[in-house]
């Protein structure tokens, strides 16, 4: 395209938004097909973006911040509640396609328990536990992953669970996340090794050598792929009973 057909002289005013409508339409039309002018415009838009910094200093009254925080407070409470529910909702979605496998595992577990402990089985039959009373443990992101959240859903036998996490940074192939179950003495036991997808979501089956509620603290760290005997990397999630 010939140089004279560019809209070079109009770009500074276009970036500032002070062209009249007819000229602005002309520039907009030209920009659709001219990469040269689009690049030139970007430089002037950067200038416009900086002009606010040259405004004379002025400070709002302190009361204005109080009004802002009062305005957002109700929404903050309800939105936080729905954010906490999000991992559980994703967990439900994750469980749906895996249901046949998990169902079979659950069935085998029940049979094994039934054979090994007839008395318990009878007691369970006499007074079946209410459905929908699975207990959960919440995990929150550390400074290394401030938007991360996690939910550990614990099975009725307390030795199994499913961990669902959200908002964790995706890792390269040489690293994975590892869940640690920490008892009162500070002894750390691996609960699961897992990865997250590009959106930061992941889920893992958790197995514990002793009831999960016997542990007092829970943490997730970044470890070499396959996991470590003990935590060595950055802690990204943590929670306590």
């Amino acid at each position, binding site marked *: 395209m010939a140089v004279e057909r560019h809209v070079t002289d109009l770009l500074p005013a276009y970036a*500032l938004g002070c062209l009249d409508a007819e000229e602005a339409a002309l520039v907009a039309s030209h920009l659709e097909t001219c990469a040269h002018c689009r690049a030139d415009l970007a430089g002037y838009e950067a200038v416009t973006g900086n*002009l606010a910094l040259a405004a004379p200093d002025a400070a709002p009254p302190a009361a204005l911040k109080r009004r802002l925080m009062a305005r957002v407070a109700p929404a903050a409470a309800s939105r936080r509640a729905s954010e906490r529910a999000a991992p559980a909702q994703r967990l439900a979605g994750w469980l749906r396609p895996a249901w046949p496998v998990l169902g079979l595992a659950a069935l085998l577990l029940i049979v094994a328990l039934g054979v090994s402990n007839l008395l318990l089985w009878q007691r369970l039959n006499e007074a079946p536990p209410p459905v929908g009373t699975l207990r959960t443990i919440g995990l929150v992101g550390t400074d290394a992953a*401030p938007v991360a959240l996690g939910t550990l859903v614990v099975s009725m036998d307390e030795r199994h669970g499913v961990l669902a996490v959200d908002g964790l940074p995706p890792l390269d192939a040489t690293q994975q996340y590892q869940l640690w179950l920490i008892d009162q003495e500070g002894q750390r036991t691996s609960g699961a090794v897992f990865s997250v997808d590009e959106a930061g979501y992941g889920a893992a089956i958790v197995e514990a050598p002793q009831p999960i509620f016997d542990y007092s603290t829970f943490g997730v760290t970044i470890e070499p792929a396959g996991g470590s005997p003990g935590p060595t990397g950055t802690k990204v999630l943590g929670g306590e009973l």
Partner: protein
Amino acid sequence: MNYTTLDDETLLRLVAHANADALSTLYDRYCRLVFSVALNAVSDHPTAEEITLDVFTRVWERASTYRADRATVTTWLASIARHRAIDVLRRRQARPEQFSVEWAETSASNMPHIDGPEEQVALAMQQQRVRAAMAALPEDQKRALALAYFQGLSHNEIAATLREPLGTVKTRIRLGMQKLRQMLQDERFAPADQSSRGSATYNDLGGR
């Protein structure tokens, strides 16, 4: 958690997750900038306060729409404040006194205090740089740019306001923007200790 150590983008991500503490920190960091833009446009404190409140309420409601690849948080907030103020002026159908808009002077006394978290240091240093560049422009160019930026006036409206020929106003706007662009790219306008403090670069602040 000490939110003041977090960068702008992290704070916005937290705001998008309904974190009121992150909004509070972002407000502390940028309320003066937003209020200054609004006040210089509308020239009255109550309206400027309402605009500032609206800007941060919008940040609270729409933080998830922020795109870091399109603009820095500084540019994004300033743009929201500017357009909100211009909307208010257009609804009023009357502009403040013709020369009420102005740019900050660059005397040492009103330079921002450079200390504290890196984000604030970078912002203050860029502020120095922009103000020094603006101060180097001729008065007539600064005045035309101020009317366009703060009040959203077109070439024709600026010419009518200043009672100058349209062609003269167009030239002033074009030359002013060209000089600012050149000066902001010129290392001589960078603060002396910028390289050692990791200040925002020209491209960081709105370049693509």
